[in-house]
């Protein structure tokens, strides 16, 4: 069956036209919590890119080479989450062992990622949309980059807003959501760039 979307288009789309956060609403909880400033946003974002790309690849293999042949596709939710949790745990152990510096920068974000619905969401979407292996990795990488783009931009904006007078009930999540709405609106402008063949 021919999907027709090349991996490159999927990669590009996941960042701009179908940004997984601004269009698919994936990863909102950590987005709202961490996006106060650019540095922590960037740190979390990089961790997300790394984990998302790898887990897309791993979960693709798990799904098509383990679950489908043994007719156990209804367990994909459990299988994917186990893979994600195990991968994050493994990465955390490796970073802690081999690069204390990196651990200080990224380490604290890794546990947050396991419950980040964006990671699981990307894995579920790639199955629903029938992506092949290359497209799945492209989607994972692009998704991570798109998510990072959104959270870093939001961090920059909120840093600038730190001195602005915002009505108290709107502070925090309220204003962040409205800014996110404006960003989503802006990103919609990208949709003319992709011609899906």
């Amino acid at each position, binding site marked *: 069956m021919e999907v027709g979307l090349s991996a490159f288009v999927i990669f590009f789309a996941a960042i701009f036209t179908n940004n997984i956060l601004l269009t698919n609403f994936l990863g909102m909880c950590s987005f709202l919590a961490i996006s106060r400033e650019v540095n922590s946003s960037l740190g979390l974002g990089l961790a997300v890119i790394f984990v998302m790309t790898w887990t897309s690849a791993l979960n693709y293999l798990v799904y098509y080479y383990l679950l489908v042949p043994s007719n156990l596709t209804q367990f994909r939710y459990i299988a994917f989450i186990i893979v994600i949790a195990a991968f994050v745990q493994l990465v955390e152990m490796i970073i802690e062992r081999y690069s204390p510096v990196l651990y200080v920068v990224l380490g604290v974000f890794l546990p947050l990622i396991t419950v980040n619905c964006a990671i699981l969401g990307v894995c579920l979407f790639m199955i629903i949309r*029938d992506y092949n292996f290359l497209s799945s990795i492209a989607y994972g990488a692009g998704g991570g980059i798109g998510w990072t783009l959104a959270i870093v931009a939001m961090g920059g904006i909120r840093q600038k807003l730190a001195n602005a007078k915002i009505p108290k009930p709107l502070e925090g999540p309220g204003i962040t959501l409205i800014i996110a709405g404006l960003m989503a609106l802006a990103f919609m402008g990208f949709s003319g760039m992709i011609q899906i063949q």
Partner: protein
Amino acid sequence: MKKIRRFSIYYMFLLTLIFTVVVTAVYEIHVDRIEVNEKIKLQKIILQVLDVPVPEGAEDREVLDIFNKRVKSKDVEGNTIYIATSENGESVEGYAIGLQGPGFWGPVYGMMGISPQLDRVLGIAFYKHSETPGLGGRITEFWFIDQFKGKKIGDIQGEQKPFFRLKSPGTAKASNEVDAITGATGTSRAVERLINKDLRRSLPLLAQLR
């Protein structure tokens, strides 16, 4: 410490076993129903696009009977074509072809019914897609697919013109134009593309069958 470790492992194992059994049980109870749902859904779609009447609220059994009586499937060059026959099985009353192609989000699957003379659309319907609910997902809604019913299929085989165009709602004028979905430009364009592609591919195959 070791005791707790060992207990943890046994505990986890036992719990996983229990839940796996429960989930599998729920699955086994329902898997047949899910499969039947899929099959009847496709049959209902085929009957719908072929304009074969199915009584409102028909039971699955009834749909199956009507389908088996009125529709035959035939394989032409790797494509499955469904042929509707009249009540007495004598004459052909229409052909149904599969529609398939990339949508905006993921693959879109549908069926199109074509008149026996290959000159009119009997109906179209979409049965599987990943488009945005409420936006691109509206391709399954009655108002959208009803536009195609009775539309003339142009005799343009070999030319580069499209069979059908989706235009901004309210601007569709020519006989081969229908309204697209507001706010779902990507899906509308993708659907236009796949309808035209599959018509172009299937019409020669249907001509062979006649």
